[in-house]
C-alpha cells in the first residue's frame, strides 16, 4: 500500500503516468485527509484497458468498508466502465484506490498502450452533526447528548439551559445552581418542563434587574411539584426570596397567585429529592418601574418647579419659595432644594417648608432712631420702617433732591435685608446741625 500524506488535497496517478502503465501490477493508495473531513475524489484522465466487468486492468475505489466502484476503459469505449466526471465521497477521512493490471494489453493481437489515470482528491468538511442525525436513526448513541454544532474540520457539543457538559464533551448533566436572568422580562421553568424534572436538583435562578424596577412573578399552568397531604413540601420545593427575604415556599398542584416582589432582586431555589414524577413549574416574570409619590407642597409659599404627572426612580424635583420666603429643612435654612426619587419609591429627603424672610431687628441709627410704618416689631418680608434723626441737633444727609423721609424709608426685602430704594443697605447718616443754638445769646438792654 502507498499512503498519501495527510493533506487537504492532492493527486493520485497510475505508475509512469502519462506513459503506459506496467503489466502485472497492483498497488493500493490509501488517501487520508485530516480528521473531521471526508475525501472527495474525481478523475481527470482515465485510460485503462477495457474489459468485460473490468476483469483485466481496473481501478477500484473503496471507503468506509464499502466498494464504491470498479472502473476500466475510457470515455466513449463500448467496453469497460470508465468513471467519467463522477465524484466519489467517503464518509470518513480515508479512501482506498486500488490499481490492478494483468500480464498484457493486446487487442486482436495488437499490443495496445494505455496511459493510465490521473485523479485529484480534496478534503471536504464532514458535518458530524448531520451524520449524527443519520446515526440517531441507526444507533441509540448520538455524538452529543443534547446539542451538536458542526464546524469545518470538527464539531462540538453543548447542553440545554440548566445542564452542564461533562468532561467527556458529549454528555450533559443537570446544573442549575447559578442561573442568572438580567432581562427586564422573561420566562423561567424547571428543567424539562412540562416533562418531569430530574431528581436531586439544587437549582438557583437569580433575577437581577436595574435599580428602580420591581419584579412581578406569574406562574403558568401546569404547576406541579411533589407534595404530601399532611406535611408541607417534604420532597421537592420551590422557595422564593426577594432581596434575600423569603417570600414563599411552594409545592403541590395549585399554582401560586401572582407575586409583586417589590424588589429588583429575586432568587428562586428549587430543590428536588431522588424520586418523583411531577411536571414542574414555569413562570413569567416582568418588571415595572418604581414610582415615587407625587410631591405636595406643605404650605402655599412653596413652589415645585415643572411639576410632572408622575415621578419615577431617578426623577427629581426642585422646590423653591415665593419671593420673600426662605426654604427651611427643619430649622436649617437652605439655599436650594432638590429631592430625588429613590429605588425604593421614596423621596430621598422630605419636602421643605417656606418661611417668611425675617430681616431681623433694624440696625440702630447713631443720633437717630426708627419707627415702624407697618406693624410694630414685625421685621418680616415687606415690613417698613422710617429712620429719623434727632432734630434739631442732627439732620439726615440727603442727596439728589431726595427728602429725608425718602432717604430714611427702609423695606424688609426678599433677600432678608433692610433696604432703602436708592441707597440699598447703606444706613442713612445723621449729620450735626451747626450754628443753631436753642438758647442763643440775647441782649435786651439798649
Amino acid at each position: 500500500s502507498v499512503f498519501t500524506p495527510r493533506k487537504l488535497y492532492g493527486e493520485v496517478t497510475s505508475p509512469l503516468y502519462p506513459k503506459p502503465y506496467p503489466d502485472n501490477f497492483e498497488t493500493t493508495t490509501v488517501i487520508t485527509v485530516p480528521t473531521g473531513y471526508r475525501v472527495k475524489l474525481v478523475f481527470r484522465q482515465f485510460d485503462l484497458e477495457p474489459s468485460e466487468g473490468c476483469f483485466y486492468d481496473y481501478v477500484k475505489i473503496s471507503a468506509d468498508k464499502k466498494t464504491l466502484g470498479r472502473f476500466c476503459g475510457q470515455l466513449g469505449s463500448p467496453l469497460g466502465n470508465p468513471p467519467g466526471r463522477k465524484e466519489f465521497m467517503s464518509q470518513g477521512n480515508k479512501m482506498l484506490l486500488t490499481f490492478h493490471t494483468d500480464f498484457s494489453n493486446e487487442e486482436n493481437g495488437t499490443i495496445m498502450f494505455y496511459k493510465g489515470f490521473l485523479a485529484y482528491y480534496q478534503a471536504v468538511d464532514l458535518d458530524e452533526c448531520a451524520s449524527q442525525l443519520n446515526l440517531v436513526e441507526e444507533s441509540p448513541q448520538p455524538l452529543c447528548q443534547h446539542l451538536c454544532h458542526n464546524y469545518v474540520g470538527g464539531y462540538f457539543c453543548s447542553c440545554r439551559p440548566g445542564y452542564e457538559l461533562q468532561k467527556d464533551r458529549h454528555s450533559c448533566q443537570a446544573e442549575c445552581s447559578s442561573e442568572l436572568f438580567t432581562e427586564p422580562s422573561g420566562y423561567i421553568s424547571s428543567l424539562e418542563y412540562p416533562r418531569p424534572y430530574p431528581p436531586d436538583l439544587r437549582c438557583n435562578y437569580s433575577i437581577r434587574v436595574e435599580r428602580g424596577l420591581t419584579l412581578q412573578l406569574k406562574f403558568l399552568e401546569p404547576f406541579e411539584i411533589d407534595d404530601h397531604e399532611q406535611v408541607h413540601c417534604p420532597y421537592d420545593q420551590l422557595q422564593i426570596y426577594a432581596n434575600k427575604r423569603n417570600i414563599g415556599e411552594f409545592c403541590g398542584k395549585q399554582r401560586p397567585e401572582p407575586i409583586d416582589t417589590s424588589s429588583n432582586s429575586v432568587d428562586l431555589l428549587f430543590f428536588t429529592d431522588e424520586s418523583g414524577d411531577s411536571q414542574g413549574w414555569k413562570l413569567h416574570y416582568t418588571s415595572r418601574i418604581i414610582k415615587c409619590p407625587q410631591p405636595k407642597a406643605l404650605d402655599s409659599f412653596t413652589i415645585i418647579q415643572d411639576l410632572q404627572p408622575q415621578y419615577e426612580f431617578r426623577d427629581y424635583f426642585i422646590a423653591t419659595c415665593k419671593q420673600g420666603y426662605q426654604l427651611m429643612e427643619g430649622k436649617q435654612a437652605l439655599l436650594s432644594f432638590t429631592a430625588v426619587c429613590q429605588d425604593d419609591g421614596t423621596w430621598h429627603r422630605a419636602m421643605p417648608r417656606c418661611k417668611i424672610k425675617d430681616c431681623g431687628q433694624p440696625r440702630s441709627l447713631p443720633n437717630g432712631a426708627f419707627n415702624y410704618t407697618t406693624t410694630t416689631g414685625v421685621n418680616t418680608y415687606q415690613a417698613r420702617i422710617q429712620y429719623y434723626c434727632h432734630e434739631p441737633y442732627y439732620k439726615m444727609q440727603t442727596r439728589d433732591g431726595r427728602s429725608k423721609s425718602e432717604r430714611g424709608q427702609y423695606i424688609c426685602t426678599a433677600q432678608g435685608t433692610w433696604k432703602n430704594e436708592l441707597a440699598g443697605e447703606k444706613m442713612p447718616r445723621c449729620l450735626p446741625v451747626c450754628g443753631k443754638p436753642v438758647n442763643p445769646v440775647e441782649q435786651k438792654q439798649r
Partner: protein
Amino acid sequence: IVGGQKAKLGNFPWQAFTNIHGRGGGALLGDRWILTAAHTLYPKEYEAQGNATVDVFLGHVNVEEITKLANHPVRRVSIHPDYRQEESHNFEGDIALLELENSVTLGPNLLPICLPDNETFYDQGLMGYVSGFGITEERLSHNLRFVRLPVAKREDCERWLRKKNRKDVFSENMFCSGDPTLKQDACQGDSGGVFAVRDEKNDRWVATGIISWGIGCSRGYGFYTKLLNYVDWIKKEMEEED
C-alpha cells in the same frame, strides 16, 4: 473776657474749655472736632518739656460743672503748617484742630458752630460775640463770659500797631476787632475761642475768627485768625465725609 457778661447755658453751645498749658478755649465743629488756636498747644516763648496733656471739656458755662462732665480724650492734634512757635511776634497760622476720640452727643448745651463762606462776615463794624473762660479784670472767671465786639477797620488796627511801635505781624489771615475806646476785649485764657457772628440770612451762627493775640487786654484792638482763609484746610483735616 473783659467788660463782658456771664453767659447762660445754651448761649454758646459750641464753647470748649481747654486746659493744656493753661486755660484756653475752643469751638465744636461737627461732633468730634475742636477748633482752637495753635498757640494754646504750642505757646510762644515757651520751652517745650515733653508733650502737655490736652484736656477738653464741653457742654456747660460753669468751670466747675463743665469739668465734672468729663474730659473728652483727644485722638489727634493738627497744627496749621504756617504756625511758627518760635516767632513770638508772628501769630500767622494760629489755628489748630483737635480730633476727639469719640463723637459727642449733641444737645441744647452742646452744638457745633458753622464756618464762614464769604467775606461779608468781615465787614467793618459787623458785631460778633467773643466768649471764654479767661481772665476778667485780673480775675480768673468761674463762668463763661462773653462780650459783643465790632469788626474793626484793618487800617485802624495797623495804624494803632504802628503808633505803638509794634512789629507784630498783622497779616491778611487775621482780622481785628474792638475799639481802643471800649473797655471790652478778650483776654488770657480766652485764646482758641471763636468770634461768632449771627448770619441773619441763613439763621445760624458762624465762627469767623479765633481769639489769637492782642497787646494787653481791653486797651485797644484784639487780633483774630481769619477763619475764612482756613476753611479749606479745616475741611481737609476733618476729611468731611459725604
